[in-house]
């Protein structure tokens, strides 16, 4: 305990700077709102939160480019390394996109400062989740992400859909966090440790309590599956994404999901190494194989039957959680683990851009008063060609068609799975991708080839939404030439985890 105090240095290790910038930006927004609660300038608030998230992005990027060495900080409670910085890149870019897009969304709303502050607090929590090196910090960071998210989903206080979505998200989330805490308590009971390295060491002597440990591990898997929106805890996702304000849906389905994966990679690779856990009978790889196949299949089949665009995107995001889960499901003792885990991280990176972009396009359509079903999108390309081109890019990229970013990330992911000897996971993924092409192309067909039933009047062009949708599309396209470095970085930092 005293050792811990000695190691605690006030001030921030430079690897923590991105998270600190996000947190300080949120506090600054609170400060501005405190000075003048009634008349906040929306442009100022938006500018500050975009600036803060871009600064965090730049810091994380430059640290990552400089080849940051893994440093444990605060008595091993946090671990700043390539993985945490890589995920911070994802979170900061999604936060920046969502902040820009919310400018138009918040024009007629009160509580703009609170909205931005909550988004930034959630982003802080996410970047801490990616850096967690102890079950205690993992739980606290997860709650720091979850609590603002509940409030954001229920942000439209007088809208029944938003409130209902917030309620369901909260109920499932509270249940999942209780399960996670109980799982942590069982792991602590079996090992007497909280930090990942200490748990891994204590597992050697924990053979006779493998039952308690195994139950704890399964419960922890359940808790993080909620954040990923993977199968046993996925059913909040369609409700929450449909009811929530569309920028928030984009934020949750990209950044929050990636944070869940970051945490899962950290916990399972760090605390319960495959080569030790599986011989003990604590076979979490099998759990994730079942989850991956179930999540992919259920997400894609459910998405194919949806008429409502937001619900379709929600189920598609469940399906993508299934693809990313391959990163954990294809691990084996001594296999090329870094490759498959890194491929999964790269997929989440690309996914952050294309999925946020797709939700922001929906936000734009909502802004114009277009309905929510597929039919309402008929002929939208005639009135809004630029945005429709961007949406087409997102859809094809999500489906995994060449030459878009989504194709490369999926290709590398499936290739790495085959390389690790899990060809059947790759096969299930490929079949599901083919199915997903069906429902994504329906959106494209509605946009470009169908005739509009009602002539559409578009009032003004929302600047913030346009900027963010185009930025996301540009991000998806820029990742084509840049994809090599991204995958290499991801696989290098992932290999460092083992």
């Amino acid at each position, binding site marked *: 305990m005293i050792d811990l105090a000695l190691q605690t240095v006030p001030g921030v290790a430079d690897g923590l700077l991105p998270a600190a910038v996000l947190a300080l930006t949120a506090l600054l927004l609170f400060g501005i709102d405190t000075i003048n609660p009634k008349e906040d300038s929306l442009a100022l608030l938006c500018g500050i939160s975009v600036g803060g998230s871009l600064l965090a992005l730049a810091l994380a990027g430059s640290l990552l480019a400089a080849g940051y060495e893994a440093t444990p900080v605060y008595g091993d409670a946090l671990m700043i390394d390539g993985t945490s910085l890589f995920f911070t890149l994802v979170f900061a870019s999604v936060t920046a996109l969502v902040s820009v897009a919310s400018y138009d969304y918040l024009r007629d709303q009160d509580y703009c400062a609170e909205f931005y502050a909550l988004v930034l607090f959630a982003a802080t929590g996410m970047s801490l989740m990616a850096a967690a090196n102890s079950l205690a910090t993992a739980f606290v960071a997860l709650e720091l992400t979850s*609590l603002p998210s509940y409030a954001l989903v229920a942000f439209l*206080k007088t809208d029944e859909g938003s409130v209902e979505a917030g309620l369901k998200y*909260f109920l499932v989330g509270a249940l999942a966090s*209780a399960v996670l805490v109980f799982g942590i308590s069982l792991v602590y009971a079996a090992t007497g440790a909280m930090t990942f390295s200490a748990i891994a060491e204590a597992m050697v002597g924990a053979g006779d309590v493998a039952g308690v440990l195994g139950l704890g591990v399964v419960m922890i898997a359940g808790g993080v599956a909620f954040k990923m929106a993977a199968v046993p805890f996925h059913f909040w996702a369609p409700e929450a994404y449909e009811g929530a304000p569309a920028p928030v849906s984009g934020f949750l389905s990209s950044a929050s999901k990636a944070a869940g994966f970051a945490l899962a990679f950290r916990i399972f690779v760090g605390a319960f190494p495959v080569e030790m856990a599986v011989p003990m009978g604590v076979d979490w790889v099998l759990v994730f194989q079942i989850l991956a196949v179930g999540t992919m299949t259920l997400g894609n089949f459910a998405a194919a039957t949806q008429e409502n665009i937001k619900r379709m995107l929600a189920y598609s995001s469940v399906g993508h959680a299934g693809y990313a889960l391959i990163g954990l499901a294809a691990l084996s003792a001594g296999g090329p683990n870094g490759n498959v885990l890194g491929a999964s991280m790269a997929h989440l990176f690309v996914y952050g851009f294309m999925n946020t972009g797709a939700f922001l396009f929906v936000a734009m359509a909502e802004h114009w008063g277009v309905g929510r079903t597929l039919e309402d999108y008929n002929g939208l390309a005639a009135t809004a060609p630029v945005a429709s081109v961007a949406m087409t890019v997102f859809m094809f990229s999500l489906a995994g068609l060449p030459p878009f970013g989504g194709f490369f990330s999926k290709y590398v992911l499936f290739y790495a799975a085959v390389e690790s000897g899990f060809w059947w996971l790759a096969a299930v993924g490929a079949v599901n991708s083919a199915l997903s092409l069906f429902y994504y192309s329906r959106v494209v067909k509605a946009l470009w080839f169908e005739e509009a039933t009602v002539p559409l009047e578009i009032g003004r062009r929302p600047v913030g939404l346009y900027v963010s949708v185009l930025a996301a599309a540009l991000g998806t396209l820029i990742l084509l030439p840049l994809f090599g470095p991204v995958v290499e970085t991801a696989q290098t930092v992932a290999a460092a985890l083992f």
Partner: protein
Amino acid sequence: MAVPPSYYLLLSAALFCIGVAGVLTRRNALLFLMSIELMLNAANVNFVYFSQFWGNVTGQTFSLFVIALAAAEVAIGIGIILVLYRNFDGVDVTEATTMRW
């Protein structure tokens, strides 16, 4: 004679199961919150006992964190339940069904 560890595990598992049963059967959102609280406190029993069992204070400290976060969660939850009451005239969680499941 010390009480063996398995008794504590049984106690906490029983508390946790009562909480789960409450979550699954209750329709009142406030009772749901109380059941969640019960589940969190079941974990706290484990933390406090095994902290003493292993002879480090990590578990006890973490149980304080769990208590604090449970309070924060309840605060958010009650806020959501308040807007639920205003929009749906009640706190029955099964009544909010404008979207299909």
